[in-house]
């Protein structure tokens, strides 16, 4: 049985990454290296106001004083920040009309199953497409502007809505926060910006699709979402990259601000190239994501399905400042081959009657290492705060690992905390049961794993729940152990 499983596992590891192609386009790219002049040049190309350049330079100075964090349960070769290029953009200028986008890029998104043609696009989903360092197209802008919703690239927001950007940029993740956030603050090139006005329920799902194409380039995007009082928005990001032998750095920042009574649902399907079976290549994904429930009765909900990247370092967090505010984190993280994921969340309870829920599902196959790291902090004034945490891990095969590091800090005696954790293997008995009913190994594994992830998938918007389910099936095909 063990030998047979080993063969099946080995077979899986040879599987091709569906999104591994690259696009051959003319591009403008900075030479490798990072110093103040690079940041000034970047800011100049983007025609940024002085305050933003100043902010970038302060972040850069701060970054230079910091050191890379070493506490995560991951190992990787040191990153040479001077060998990376900090800006790559398609040469053909796009002034954001689809007709102006390089057809090669449109074709790339078509191949990824993301049609930027509004007629062909899934109904009810508006997309902002980010290709390497720049946003190339945003769909359904007119429809959204009827409702006063602003959905555009970060660069456009800086030009057209500087007051909002200035007010909120860095308000949730200051550039002093951590090494990768500081780097991002200094060199971020583009990203998405969303503003939902008071009382508006955003009529479409908003979605950003990130694609890394260029070689030896870091991708540093920044997303800022502000939901004004009583508004609602559901936002989704997807990510893929070509298969390349060298590792590529992705260090993004996402800031969410929910004002009184607002709700932000943020979903991620992360499928960056994860490296080959020997662990060569793949994306280093060092991402800082944080939301603040600024007003009373507000909600921020993170849902993530992490299947790609060779390294994932990511802790989408919620600061519950408003009374009765709610923070949620639903996560599925899959590691196979030599992938390593250290992911989880931080829930910080400041307001009264605040409530947080953490559901984390880790799946390890091959030689994958999967770590859940989660912090729950209940501050002094947060009376009647409640947290429920559930961290489950499933192991497929006998060379992988699952680790759990929960941190709990309670400063108010009225807090209620619950924590549950389980680790299990896909049982021979479960497989035997399914096989005995005529269901083959692949179908049985995907059924068992999807059942395991159900509580998380339920929180994804419908179209994406189907995508997530299929992604897990493809990822784990032939990985029985």
């Amino acid at each position, binding site marked *: 049985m063990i030998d047979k499983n080993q063969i099946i596992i080995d077979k899986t590891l040879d599987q091709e990454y569906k999104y591994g192609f690259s696009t051959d386009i003319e591009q403008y790219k900075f030479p490798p290296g990072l110093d103040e002049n690079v940041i000034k040049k970047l800011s100049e190309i983007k025609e940024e106001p002085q305050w933003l350049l100043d902010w970038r330079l302060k972040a850069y100075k701060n970054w230079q004083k910091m050191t890379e964090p070493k506490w995560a349960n991951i190992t990787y070769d040191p990153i040479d920040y001077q060998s990376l290029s900090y800006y790559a953009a398609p040469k053909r200028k796009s002034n954001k009309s689809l007709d102006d986008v390089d057809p090669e890029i449109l074709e790339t998104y078509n191949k990824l199953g993301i049609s930027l043609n509004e007629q062909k696009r899934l109904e009810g989903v508006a997309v902002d497409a980010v290709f390497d360092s720049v946003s190339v197209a945003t769909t359904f802008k007119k429809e959204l502007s009827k409702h006063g919703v602003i959905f555009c690239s970060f660069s456009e927001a800086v030009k057209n809505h500087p007051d909002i950007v200035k007010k909120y940029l860095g308000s949730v993740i200051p550039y002093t926060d951590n090494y990768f956030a500081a780097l991002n603050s200094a060199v971020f090139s583009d990203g998405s910006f969303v503003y939902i006005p008071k009382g508006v329920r955003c009529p479409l799902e908003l979605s950003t699709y990130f694609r890394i194409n260029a070689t030896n380039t870091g991708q540093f995007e920044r997303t800022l979402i502000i939901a004004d009082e009583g508004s609602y928005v559901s936002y989704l990001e997807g990510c893929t990259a070509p298969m390349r032998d060298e590792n590529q750095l992705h260090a993004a920042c996402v800031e969410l601000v929910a004002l009184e009574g607002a709700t932000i649902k943020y979903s991620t399907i992360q499928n960056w190239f994860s490296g080959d079976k020997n662990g060569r290549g793949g994306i280093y994904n060092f991402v800082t994501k944080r939301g603040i429930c600024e007003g009373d009765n507000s909600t921020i909900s993170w849902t993530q399905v992490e299947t790609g990247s060779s390294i994932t370092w990511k802790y989408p967090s919620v600061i519950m400042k408003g009374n009765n505010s709610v923070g949620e984190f639903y996560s599925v993280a899959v590691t196979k081959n030599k992938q390593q994921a250290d992911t989880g969340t931080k829930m910080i309870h400041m307001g009264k009657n605040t409530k947080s829920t953490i559901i984390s599902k880790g799946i390890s196959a091959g030689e994958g290492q999967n770590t859940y790291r989660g912090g729950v902090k209940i501050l002094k004034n947060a009376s009647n705060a409640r947290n429920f945490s559930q961290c489950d891990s499933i192991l497929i095969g006998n060379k992988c690992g699952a680790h759990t590091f929960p941190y709990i800090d309670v400063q108010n005696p009225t807090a209620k905390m619950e924590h549950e954790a389980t680790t299990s293997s896909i049982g021979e008995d479960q497989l035997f*049961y399914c096989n005995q009913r005529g269901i083959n190994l692949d179908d049985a594994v995907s059924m068992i794993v999807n059942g395991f992830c159900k509580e998380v998938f339920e929180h994804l918007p419908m179209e994406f729940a189907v995508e997530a389910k299929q992604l897990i099936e493809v990822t784990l095909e032939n990985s029985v152990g």
Partner: protein
Amino acid sequence: MLVLENIRAGIEDKEILKGINLEIPEGEVHVIMGRNGSGKSTLANVIAGNEAFEISSGSIHLNNVDITEMSIENRSLQGIFLCFQYPVSIPGVSMAYFLQQAINAHRKNQGLDDIDAVEFLKNSKEILGELQLDNSFLKRSVNEGFSGGEKKKSEILQLLTLNPKLAVLDETDSGLDVEALRIVASGVNKFRNKGNSVLIITHYQRLLDYIQPDVVHIMIDGKIIKTGDMELVKEIEEKGYSWLEE
């Protein structure tokens, strides 16, 4: 239907089945009785193809096809169904989804399209009614939080849904109250017909009050040592197994 010839099987170095010969013709119900540890459940698992057990000699034929080396799912597709003594739970997978996956695996093997959802629901509701289970049973996760009775009824639901050629019932009567036993037995009786066969594995005669077997075998220490009819069951009830050992 099912023919076992001189089956020897076990786990690692321990031989549990020590030369089993058994023939179950079409349309018949056979019973294997024996104490705990006599190898009855091992026999059920070996027929189903559980790879935890290794067959060292002998052969298994189903309708003249040699299935000794066949995979578990192919045996199922050929028509072997095992009612598990301890069915495992599969959290997050609904009974409805599980049943459809199983049905569709069988249909695919027969070159048919997936079952129509309306037809599936209609068939399932009929069977659920007979087993006195609520329709909401289909929404529950497979065997998760099921009572002892519900687990066994779930097995019979699957039996009646898949309608195999050979049903192997492994201690299906254990852990059931009289009412549940009656319902489970009537499910098995509904399944029975001239074209299929049943193998009941038990160490009590209580299930046999409801299901009339054609042939009764007694198993001791990995061997079938006596074969007879219902009279043999009565003798076992009165005298136990010791008089058969010497």
